[in-house]
Protein backbone atom coordinates (compact mmCIF):
# COMPACT_ATOMS: atom_id res chain seq x y z
CA UNK A 1 0.00 0.00 0.00
CA UNK A 2 1.21 3.49 -0.83
CA UNK A 3 -0.21 6.49 0.93
CA UNK A 4 0.61 10.05 0.03
CA UNK A 5 -0.45 13.11 1.98
CA UNK A 6 -0.58 16.72 0.81
CA UNK A 7 1.93 16.32 -2.02
CA UNK A 8 2.98 19.63 -3.56
CA UNK A 9 5.44 20.28 -6.35
CA UNK A 10 6.32 23.31 -8.43
CA UNK A 11 8.66 24.00 -11.34
CA UNK A 12 9.87 27.60 -11.57
CA UNK A 13 6.72 29.69 -11.25
CA UNK A 14 4.28 26.90 -12.08
CA UNK A 15 2.54 24.95 -9.33
CA UNK A 16 2.17 21.47 -10.81
CA UNK A 17 0.78 19.59 -7.79
CA UNK A 18 -1.14 21.08 -4.88
CA UNK A 19 -1.95 19.17 -1.69
CA UNK A 20 -2.69 15.85 -3.38
CA UNK A 21 -3.53 13.04 -0.96
CA UNK A 22 -4.68 9.49 -1.66
CA UNK A 23 -4.16 5.83 -0.79
CA UNK A 24 -3.09 3.25 -3.41
CA UNK A 25 -4.03 -0.30 -2.40
CA UNK A 26 -2.12 -3.53 -2.93
CA UNK A 27 -3.58 -6.18 -5.23
CA UNK A 28 -5.46 -3.46 -7.10
CA UNK A 29 -4.87 -1.44 -10.24
CA UNK A 30 -4.79 2.14 -9.02
CA UNK A 31 -5.24 4.68 -11.79
CA UNK A 32 -4.19 8.30 -11.97
CA UNK A 33 -6.21 9.99 -14.68
CA UNK A 34 -6.41 13.52 -16.01
CA UNK A 35 -5.86 15.65 -19.07
CA UNK A 36 -2.38 16.28 -20.48
CA UNK A 37 -0.51 18.64 -18.16
CA UNK A 38 -2.69 17.85 -15.15
CA UNK A 39 0.32 16.53 -13.19
CA UNK A 40 -0.08 12.75 -13.55
CA UNK A 41 3.51 12.01 -14.60
CA UNK A 42 4.93 14.49 -12.07
CA UNK A 43 2.91 12.83 -9.29
CA UNK A 44 4.17 9.40 -10.31
CA UNK A 45 7.77 10.63 -10.54
CA UNK A 46 7.39 12.21 -7.08
CA UNK A 47 6.10 8.91 -5.71
CA UNK A 48 9.16 6.99 -6.96
CA UNK A 49 11.55 9.76 -5.91
CA UNK A 50 12.67 10.90 -9.35
CA UNK A 51 11.44 14.35 -8.32
CA UNK A 52 11.80 15.74 -4.79
CA UNK A 53 8.46 16.92 -3.40
CA UNK A 54 8.15 20.48 -2.08
CA UNK A 55 5.83 19.35 0.69
CA UNK A 56 3.84 16.39 1.93
CA UNK A 57 4.66 12.81 2.79
CA UNK A 58 4.84 9.53 0.85
CA UNK A 59 4.43 6.31 2.83
CA UNK A 60 5.25 2.86 1.45
CA UNK A 61 3.78 0.07 3.61
CA UNK A 62 4.02 2.26 6.71
CA UNK A 63 7.55 3.54 5.97
CA UNK A 64 7.97 7.23 5.19
CA UNK A 65 9.73 7.47 1.81
CA UNK A 66 10.22 11.22 2.16
CA UNK A 67 12.16 10.76 5.40
CA UNK A 68 14.41 7.98 4.07
CA UNK A 69 18.09 8.62 3.33
CA UNK A 70 19.56 7.81 -0.10
CA UNK A 71 20.64 4.31 0.91
CA UNK A 72 17.20 3.44 2.32
CA UNK A 73 15.53 4.81 -0.82
CA UNK A 74 17.88 2.66 -2.92
CA UNK A 75 16.85 -0.42 -0.96
CA UNK A 76 13.15 0.37 -1.33
CA UNK A 77 13.52 0.98 -5.05
CA UNK A 78 14.66 -2.61 -5.46
CA UNK A 79 11.05 -3.47 -4.66
CA UNK A 80 9.73 -1.10 -7.32
CA UNK A 81 9.20 -1.91 -10.98
CA UNK A 82 8.41 0.77 -13.51
CA UNK A 83 7.13 0.73 -17.06
CA UNK A 84 7.96 3.98 -18.81
CA UNK A 85 5.92 5.72 -21.48
CA UNK A 86 8.62 5.06 -24.11
CA UNK A 87 9.50 1.67 -22.54
CA UNK A 88 13.06 2.93 -21.73
CA UNK A 89 14.69 -0.30 -22.86
CA UNK A 90 18.48 -0.30 -23.06
CA UNK A 91 19.25 0.05 -26.78
CA UNK A 92 22.55 -1.81 -26.65
CA UNK A 93 21.07 -4.89 -24.97
CA UNK A 94 18.90 -7.66 -26.36
CA UNK A 95 15.47 -8.47 -24.93
CA UNK A 96 17.12 -11.11 -22.74
CA UNK A 97 19.82 -8.64 -21.63
CA UNK A 98 17.21 -6.05 -20.73
CA UNK A 99 15.09 -8.44 -18.67
CA UNK A 100 18.15 -10.08 -17.09
CA UNK A 101 19.74 -6.74 -16.11
CA UNK A 102 18.01 -6.41 -12.68
CA UNK A 103 18.79 -10.08 -11.95
CA UNK A 104 22.47 -9.55 -12.85
CA UNK A 105 22.60 -6.48 -10.66
CA UNK A 106 20.82 -7.72 -7.56
CA UNK A 107 20.92 -11.50 -7.41
CA UNK A 108 23.71 -14.01 -7.05
CA UNK A 109 21.83 -16.72 -8.97
CA UNK A 110 23.64 -18.95 -11.42
CA UNK A 111 23.49 -17.89 -15.08
CA UNK A 112 21.25 -20.85 -15.94
CA UNK A 113 18.80 -19.90 -13.18
CA UNK A 114 18.68 -16.30 -14.40
CA UNK A 115 17.99 -17.42 -17.98
CA UNK A 116 15.24 -19.72 -16.67
CA UNK A 117 13.67 -16.83 -14.78
CA UNK A 118 13.94 -14.55 -17.84
CA UNK A 119 12.24 -17.17 -20.02
CA UNK A 120 9.46 -17.60 -17.45
CA UNK A 121 8.78 -13.86 -17.39
CA UNK A 122 8.95 -13.58 -21.18
CA UNK A 123 6.45 -16.43 -21.42
CA UNK A 124 4.22 -14.55 -18.96
CA UNK A 125 4.15 -11.53 -21.30
CA UNK A 126 3.76 -13.69 -24.44
CA UNK A 127 7.20 -12.98 -25.84
CA UNK A 128 8.65 -16.47 -26.12
CA UNK A 129 11.53 -16.71 -28.60
CA UNK A 130 12.40 -13.02 -28.70
CA UNK A 131 15.42 -13.36 -26.39
CA UNK A 132 18.01 -12.33 -28.95
CA UNK A 133 16.13 -9.45 -30.54
CA UNK A 134 17.25 -5.87 -30.04
CA UNK A 135 14.71 -3.22 -28.95
CA UNK A 136 14.99 -1.63 -32.41
CA UNK A 137 13.61 -4.86 -33.91
CA UNK A 138 10.45 -4.81 -31.77
CA UNK A 139 7.05 -3.22 -32.30
CA UNK A 140 5.64 -0.67 -29.81
CA UNK A 141 3.47 -3.26 -28.07
CA UNK A 142 6.34 -5.73 -27.81
CA UNK A 143 8.59 -3.06 -26.31
CA UNK A 144 5.93 -2.36 -23.68
CA UNK A 145 5.70 -6.04 -22.86
CA UNK A 146 9.51 -6.30 -22.53
CA UNK A 147 9.27 -3.26 -20.24
CA UNK A 148 6.68 -5.07 -18.12
CA UNK A 149 8.84 -8.22 -18.08
CA UNK A 150 11.84 -6.20 -16.88
CA UNK A 151 9.70 -4.44 -14.28
CA UNK A 152 8.32 -7.65 -12.76
CA UNK A 153 11.35 -9.93 -13.04
CA UNK A 154 12.38 -9.28 -9.42
CA UNK A 155 8.78 -9.76 -8.18
CA UNK A 156 8.39 -6.17 -7.04
CA UNK A 157 5.85 -5.10 -4.43
CA UNK A 158 5.07 -1.90 -6.30
CA UNK A 159 4.55 -1.45 -10.05
CA UNK A 160 4.35 1.95 -11.70
CA UNK A 161 3.19 2.34 -15.31
CA UNK A 162 3.37 5.67 -17.09
CA UNK A 163 0.81 5.69 -19.89
CA UNK A 164 1.28 2.04 -20.86
CA UNK A 165 -1.11 2.35 -23.80
CA UNK A 166 0.24 5.45 -25.47
CA UNK A 167 0.86 4.90 -29.17
CA UNK A 168 -0.75 1.45 -29.21
CA UNK A 169 -3.78 0.22 -31.16
CA UNK A 170 -6.94 -0.56 -29.12
CA UNK A 171 -6.46 -4.33 -29.31
CA UNK A 172 -2.84 -4.21 -28.11
CA UNK A 173 -3.84 -1.66 -25.45
CA UNK A 174 -6.40 -4.10 -24.06
CA UNK A 175 -3.79 -6.88 -24.02
CA UNK A 176 -1.37 -4.67 -22.09
CA UNK A 177 -4.13 -3.63 -19.65
CA UNK A 178 -5.13 -7.22 -19.07
CA UNK A 179 -1.52 -8.24 -18.57
CA UNK A 180 -0.91 -5.50 -16.00
CA UNK A 181 -4.17 -6.32 -14.23
CA UNK A 182 -3.36 -10.04 -14.14
CA UNK A 183 0.18 -9.66 -12.83
CA UNK A 184 -1.10 -7.21 -10.20
CA UNK A 185 -3.45 -9.86 -8.82
CA UNK A 186 -0.98 -12.72 -9.34
CA UNK A 187 1.86 -11.04 -7.42
CA UNK A 188 -0.41 -8.97 -5.11
CA UNK A 189 1.38 -5.81 -6.19
CA UNK A 190 0.40 -2.21 -5.61
CA UNK A 191 0.08 -1.06 -9.20
CA UNK A 192 -0.19 2.59 -10.12
CA UNK A 193 -1.04 3.48 -13.70
CA UNK A 194 -1.06 6.90 -15.32
CA UNK A 195 -3.49 6.92 -18.18
CA UNK A 196 -5.97 8.86 -20.21
CA UNK A 197 -7.15 5.78 -22.05
CA UNK A 198 -10.88 5.40 -21.36
CA UNK A 199 -10.84 1.68 -22.03
CA UNK A 200 -8.30 1.22 -19.23
CA UNK A 201 -10.37 3.39 -16.91
CA UNK A 202 -13.53 1.37 -17.48
CA UNK A 203 -11.91 -2.09 -17.60
CA UNK A 204 -9.24 -2.12 -14.89
CA UNK A 205 -9.89 0.96 -12.74
CA UNK A 206 -10.21 -0.47 -9.21
CA UNK A 207 -9.18 2.74 -7.52
CA UNK A 208 -9.11 5.93 -9.54
CA UNK A 209 -7.85 9.40 -8.74
CA UNK A 210 -8.73 12.19 -11.17
CA UNK A 211 -6.35 15.16 -11.26
CA UNK A 212 -7.25 18.56 -12.60
CA UNK A 213 -4.70 21.39 -12.69
CA UNK A 214 -2.56 19.58 -10.14
CA UNK A 215 -5.37 19.06 -7.61
CA UNK A 216 -7.36 15.95 -6.67
CA UNK A 217 -10.76 16.52 -8.22
CA UNK A 218 -12.45 13.16 -7.81
CA UNK A 219 -11.82 9.65 -6.56
CA UNK A 220 -13.68 6.36 -6.95
CA UNK A 221 -13.75 3.25 -9.15
CA UNK A 222 -14.86 2.45 -12.69
CA UNK A 223 -18.46 1.85 -11.56
CA UNK A 224 -18.62 5.14 -9.65
CA UNK A 225 -17.56 7.02 -12.78
CA UNK A 226 -20.82 6.11 -14.52
CA UNK A 227 -22.88 7.78 -11.81
CA UNK A 228 -20.55 10.64 -11.09
CA UNK A 229 -22.00 14.09 -11.38
CA UNK A 230 -18.66 15.83 -11.36
CA UNK A 231 -18.83 18.01 -14.46
CA UNK A 232 -15.06 18.20 -15.04
CA UNK A 233 -14.74 14.43 -14.76
CA UNK A 234 -17.69 13.82 -17.08
CA UNK A 235 -16.32 16.29 -19.62
CA UNK A 236 -12.97 14.51 -19.51
CA UNK A 237 -14.16 10.88 -19.52
CA UNK A 238 -17.19 11.17 -21.76
CA UNK A 239 -15.79 13.71 -24.17
CA UNK A 240 -17.31 12.21 -27.33
CA UNK A 241 -20.98 11.57 -28.14
CA UNK A 242 -20.20 7.88 -28.49
CA UNK A 243 -18.89 7.73 -24.94
CA UNK A 244 -21.84 9.76 -23.64
CA UNK A 245 -24.19 7.20 -25.23
CA UNK A 246 -22.15 4.41 -23.68
CA UNK A 247 -22.54 6.07 -20.28
CA UNK A 248 -26.32 6.31 -20.69
CA UNK A 249 -26.49 2.61 -21.65
CA UNK A 250 -24.42 1.58 -18.67
CA UNK A 251 -26.56 3.66 -16.35
CA UNK A 252 -29.71 2.05 -17.67
CA UNK A 253 -28.09 -1.39 -17.41
CA UNK A 254 -27.15 -0.68 -13.82
CA UNK A 255 -30.70 0.41 -13.02
CA UNK A 256 -31.99 -2.80 -14.57
CA UNK A 257 -33.93 -1.15 -17.38
CA UNK A 258 -34.19 -2.55 -20.89
CA UNK A 259 -32.21 -0.78 -23.58
Amino acid at each position, binding site marked *: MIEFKNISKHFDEKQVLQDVSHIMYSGKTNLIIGTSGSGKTVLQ*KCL*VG*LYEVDGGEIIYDGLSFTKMNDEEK*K*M*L*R*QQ*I*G*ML*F*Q*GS*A*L*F*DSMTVEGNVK*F*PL*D*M*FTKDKESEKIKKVNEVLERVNLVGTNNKLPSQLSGGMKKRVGIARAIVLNPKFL*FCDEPNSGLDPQTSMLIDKLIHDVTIEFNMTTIINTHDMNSVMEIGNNIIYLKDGKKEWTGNSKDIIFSENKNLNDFIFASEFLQDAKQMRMLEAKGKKI
Partner: protein
Amino acid sequence: MRFFSHFGKYFIMLKGMISKPENSKLYWKEFMHQCSEIGMGSLGIVCIISLFMGAVSALQTAYQITSPIMSKLIIAQIIRDTVILEFAPTLICIVLAGVVGSKIASELGNMRVSEQIDAIEIMGINSKTYLIMPKIAAALVTIPMLVILAMVLGIYGGRLTVGISGIISTETYDRGLKELFIPYNVFFAMMKAYTFAFIVSSIPAYFGYYVKGGSLEIGRNSTKSVVVTCVVILFADYILAALLL
Protein backbone atom coordinates in the same frame (compact mmCIF):
# COMPACT_ATOMS: atom_id res chain seq x y z
CA MET B 1 26.45 33.23 -12.49
CA ARG B 2 25.53 30.42 -14.89
CA PHE B 3 29.19 29.36 -15.00
CA PHE B 4 29.22 28.86 -11.22
CA SER B 5 25.95 26.95 -11.39
CA HIS B 6 27.44 24.55 -13.98
CA PHE B 7 30.66 24.32 -12.00
CA GLY B 8 28.82 23.39 -8.81
CA LYS B 9 26.57 20.89 -10.56
CA TYR B 10 29.63 19.30 -12.20
CA PHE B 11 31.29 18.72 -8.84
CA ILE B 12 28.04 17.43 -7.33
CA MET B 13 27.91 14.93 -10.21
CA LEU B 14 31.49 13.84 -9.50
CA LYS B 15 30.73 13.47 -5.80
CA GLY B 16 27.52 11.54 -6.51
CA MET B 17 29.46 9.19 -8.73
CA ILE B 18 31.52 7.89 -5.83
CA SER B 19 29.54 5.13 -4.15
CA LYS B 20 29.84 1.40 -3.57
CA PRO B 21 28.90 -0.53 -6.73
CA GLU B 22 25.78 -2.71 -6.36
CA ASN B 23 27.48 -5.54 -8.23
CA SER B 24 31.24 -5.25 -8.86
CA LYS B 25 31.17 -7.91 -11.59
CA LEU B 26 28.74 -5.91 -13.71
CA TYR B 27 30.68 -2.71 -13.14
CA TRP B 28 33.90 -4.43 -14.16
CA LYS B 29 32.19 -5.64 -17.33
CA GLU B 30 31.04 -2.09 -18.07
CA PHE B 31 34.56 -0.77 -17.36
CA MET B 32 36.10 -3.27 -19.80
CA HIS B 33 33.46 -2.38 -22.38
CA GLN B 34 34.32 1.30 -22.04
CA CYS B 35 38.06 0.54 -22.27
CA SER B 36 37.37 -1.16 -25.57
CA GLU B 37 35.08 1.66 -26.77
CA ILE B 38 37.45 4.49 -25.80
CA GLY B 39 40.79 2.74 -26.39
CA MET B 40 40.19 0.51 -29.37
CA GLY B 41 37.60 2.86 -30.84
CA SER B 42 40.13 5.69 -31.06
CA LEU B 43 43.17 3.61 -31.99
CA GLY B 44 42.92 4.13 -35.75
CA ILE B 45 42.55 7.91 -35.69
CA VAL B 46 45.33 8.24 -33.07
CA CYS B 47 47.74 6.19 -35.22
CA ILE B 48 47.02 8.20 -38.38
CA ILE B 49 47.26 11.59 -36.66
CA SER B 50 50.44 10.66 -34.79
CA LEU B 51 52.28 9.41 -37.87
CA PHE B 52 51.41 12.52 -39.87
CA MET B 53 52.10 14.78 -36.91
CA GLY B 54 55.68 13.47 -36.74
CA ALA B 55 56.09 13.48 -40.52
CA VAL B 56 54.93 17.08 -40.99
CA SER B 57 57.00 18.22 -37.99
CA ALA B 58 60.07 16.71 -39.60
CA LEU B 59 59.50 18.49 -42.91
CA GLN B 60 58.72 21.85 -41.33
CA THR B 61 61.62 21.70 -38.88
CA ALA B 62 64.04 20.86 -41.68
CA TYR B 63 62.59 23.69 -43.76
CA GLN B 64 63.27 26.21 -41.00
CA ILE B 65 66.78 25.03 -40.15
CA THR B 66 68.75 26.54 -42.98
CA SER B 67 71.93 27.58 -41.19
CA PRO B 68 74.88 25.33 -42.16
CA ILE B 69 76.46 25.79 -38.72
CA MET B 70 73.54 24.18 -36.92
CA SER B 71 73.83 20.47 -36.21
CA LYS B 72 71.37 18.28 -38.12
CA LEU B 73 70.84 16.33 -34.92
CA ILE B 74 68.68 19.20 -33.73
CA ILE B 75 65.92 18.20 -36.17
CA ALA B 76 65.40 14.91 -34.30
CA GLN B 77 65.58 16.67 -30.94
CA ILE B 78 62.98 19.26 -31.91
CA ILE B 79 60.62 16.56 -33.22
CA ARG B 80 61.15 14.44 -30.10
CA ASP B 81 60.52 17.27 -27.66
CA THR B 82 57.55 18.83 -29.45
CA VAL B 83 55.91 15.45 -29.89
CA ILE B 84 56.49 14.39 -26.27
CA LEU B 85 55.75 17.72 -24.62
CA GLU B 86 52.88 19.04 -26.67
CA PHE B 87 51.68 17.19 -29.74
CA ALA B 88 51.09 13.75 -28.25
CA PRO B 89 49.31 14.74 -25.03
CA THR B 90 47.54 17.95 -26.07
CA LEU B 91 46.75 17.49 -29.75
CA ILE B 92 45.70 13.86 -29.31
CA CYS B 93 43.47 14.73 -26.35
CA ILE B 94 41.84 17.55 -28.33
CA VAL B 95 41.11 15.03 -31.08
CA LEU B 96 39.80 12.60 -28.44
CA ALA B 97 37.54 15.36 -27.09
CA GLY B 98 35.83 15.19 -30.47
CA VAL B 99 35.89 11.43 -30.93
CA VAL B 100 35.31 10.17 -27.38
CA GLY B 101 33.74 13.25 -25.80
CA SER B 102 30.94 13.66 -28.31
CA LYS B 103 30.20 9.94 -28.09
CA ILE B 104 29.96 10.03 -24.28
CA ALA B 105 27.76 13.16 -24.33
CA SER B 106 25.39 11.86 -27.00
CA GLU B 107 25.18 8.36 -25.48
CA LEU B 108 24.28 9.69 -22.02
CA GLY B 109 22.05 12.37 -23.51
CA ASN B 110 20.10 9.78 -25.45
CA MET B 111 19.78 7.65 -22.32
CA ARG B 112 18.48 10.65 -20.39
CA VAL B 113 15.93 11.68 -23.03
CA SER B 114 14.64 8.13 -23.55
CA GLU B 115 14.28 7.71 -19.74
CA GLN B 116 16.86 4.92 -19.60
CA ILE B 117 18.70 6.78 -16.81
CA ASP B 118 15.42 7.08 -14.89
CA ALA B 119 14.89 3.34 -15.41
CA ILE B 120 18.32 2.63 -13.89
CA GLU B 121 17.58 4.92 -10.92
CA ILE B 122 14.19 3.27 -10.33
CA MET B 123 15.91 -0.11 -10.11
CA GLY B 124 17.83 1.23 -7.11
CA ILE B 125 21.10 1.65 -9.00
CA ASN B 126 23.20 4.80 -8.70
CA SER B 127 23.11 5.84 -12.37
CA LYS B 128 26.09 8.16 -11.97
CA THR B 129 28.23 5.37 -10.54
CA TYR B 130 27.09 2.85 -13.13
CA LEU B 131 27.21 5.08 -16.20
CA ILE B 132 29.83 7.75 -15.56
CA MET B 133 32.45 6.18 -13.29
CA PRO B 134 33.39 3.34 -15.68
CA LYS B 135 33.78 5.87 -18.51
CA ILE B 136 36.12 8.10 -16.49
CA ALA B 137 38.08 5.10 -15.17
CA ALA B 138 38.40 3.67 -18.68
CA ALA B 139 39.55 7.03 -20.04
CA LEU B 140 42.17 7.30 -17.26
CA VAL B 141 43.51 3.87 -18.24
CA THR B 142 43.35 4.01 -22.03
CA ILE B 143 44.04 7.66 -22.93
CA PRO B 144 47.54 7.75 -21.36
CA MET B 145 48.27 4.54 -23.29
CA LEU B 146 47.09 6.21 -26.48
CA VAL B 147 49.31 9.20 -25.68
CA ILE B 148 52.35 6.93 -25.25
CA LEU B 149 51.49 5.28 -28.56
CA ALA B 150 51.15 8.73 -30.15
CA MET B 151 54.61 9.69 -28.86
CA VAL B 152 56.20 6.56 -30.35
CA LEU B 153 54.37 6.85 -33.66
CA GLY B 154 54.98 10.60 -33.91
CA ILE B 155 58.71 10.16 -33.48
CA TYR B 156 58.64 7.18 -35.85
CA GLY B 157 56.68 9.23 -38.44
CA GLY B 158 59.45 11.85 -38.29
CA ARG B 159 62.08 9.13 -38.74
CA LEU B 160 60.29 7.72 -41.76
CA THR B 161 60.01 11.15 -43.36
CA VAL B 162 63.61 12.21 -42.84
CA GLY B 163 64.71 8.84 -44.22
CA ILE B 164 62.49 8.92 -47.30
CA SER B 165 63.08 12.58 -48.14
CA GLY B 166 66.81 12.39 -47.42
CA ILE B 167 66.85 15.36 -45.00
CA ILE B 168 69.15 13.44 -42.68
CA SER B 169 69.99 9.76 -42.41
CA THR B 170 67.96 7.60 -40.03
CA GLU B 171 71.18 6.87 -38.09
CA THR B 172 71.67 10.62 -37.50
CA TYR B 173 68.03 10.92 -36.50
CA ASP B 174 68.38 8.08 -33.98
CA ARG B 175 71.53 9.67 -32.57
CA GLY B 176 69.70 13.00 -32.26
CA LEU B 177 66.89 11.34 -30.36
CA LYS B 178 69.26 10.00 -27.71
CA GLU B 179 71.15 13.26 -27.22
CA LEU B 180 70.01 15.75 -24.55
CA PHE B 181 67.01 13.61 -23.70
CA ILE B 182 65.28 14.72 -20.48
CA PRO B 183 63.22 11.87 -18.95
CA TYR B 184 61.22 14.43 -16.90
CA ASN B 185 59.56 15.49 -20.16
CA VAL B 186 57.88 12.08 -20.38
CA PHE B 187 56.69 12.41 -16.77
CA PHE B 188 55.31 15.87 -17.58
CA ALA B 189 53.57 14.52 -20.68
CA MET B 190 51.99 11.72 -18.64
CA MET B 191 50.75 14.21 -16.04
CA LYS B 192 49.09 16.07 -18.88
CA ALA B 193 47.68 12.86 -20.32
CA TYR B 194 46.01 11.88 -17.02
CA THR B 195 44.62 15.38 -16.47
CA PHE B 196 43.27 15.60 -20.02
CA ALA B 197 41.84 12.07 -19.84
CA PHE B 198 39.79 13.12 -16.84
CA ILE B 199 38.63 16.27 -18.61
CA VAL B 200 37.82 14.44 -21.87
CA SER B 201 35.57 11.96 -20.08
CA SER B 202 34.02 13.94 -17.23
CA ILE B 203 32.96 17.16 -19.00
CA PRO B 204 31.07 15.43 -21.85
CA ALA B 205 29.54 13.09 -19.25
CA TYR B 206 28.23 16.14 -17.41
CA PHE B 207 26.74 17.65 -20.56
CA GLY B 208 25.17 14.35 -21.57
CA TYR B 209 23.85 13.36 -18.15
CA TYR B 210 21.99 16.63 -17.60
CA VAL B 211 20.44 17.01 -21.07
CA LYS B 212 16.89 18.35 -21.00
CA GLY B 213 14.65 18.16 -24.04
CA GLY B 214 14.93 16.05 -27.18
CA SER B 215 17.29 15.09 -29.97
CA LEU B 216 18.02 18.72 -30.84
CA GLU B 217 19.31 19.35 -27.31
CA ILE B 218 21.39 16.16 -27.44
CA GLY B 219 23.14 17.49 -30.56
CA ARG B 220 23.59 20.94 -29.05
CA ASN B 221 24.94 19.61 -25.76
CA SER B 222 27.26 17.22 -27.58
CA THR B 223 28.77 20.10 -29.59
CA LYS B 224 28.93 22.29 -26.50
CA SER B 225 30.69 19.53 -24.57
CA VAL B 226 33.41 19.25 -27.25
CA VAL B 227 33.97 23.03 -27.33
CA VAL B 228 34.11 23.33 -23.52
CA THR B 229 36.39 20.28 -23.26
CA CYS B 230 38.84 21.74 -25.80
CA VAL B 231 38.94 25.10 -24.02
CA VAL B 232 39.44 23.46 -20.62
CA ILE B 233 42.22 21.26 -22.05
CA LEU B 234 44.06 24.31 -23.39
CA PHE B 235 43.59 26.13 -20.10
CA ALA B 236 44.81 23.11 -18.12
CA ASP B 237 47.74 22.79 -20.55
CA TYR B 238 48.84 26.31 -19.69
CA ILE B 239 48.43 25.78 -15.94
CA LEU B 240 50.39 22.52 -15.98
CA ALA B 241 53.18 24.04 -18.07
CA ALA B 242 53.41 27.01 -15.72
CA LEU B 243 53.43 24.78 -12.64
CA LEU B 244 55.56 21.83 -13.73
CA LEU B 245 58.12 23.18 -16.20
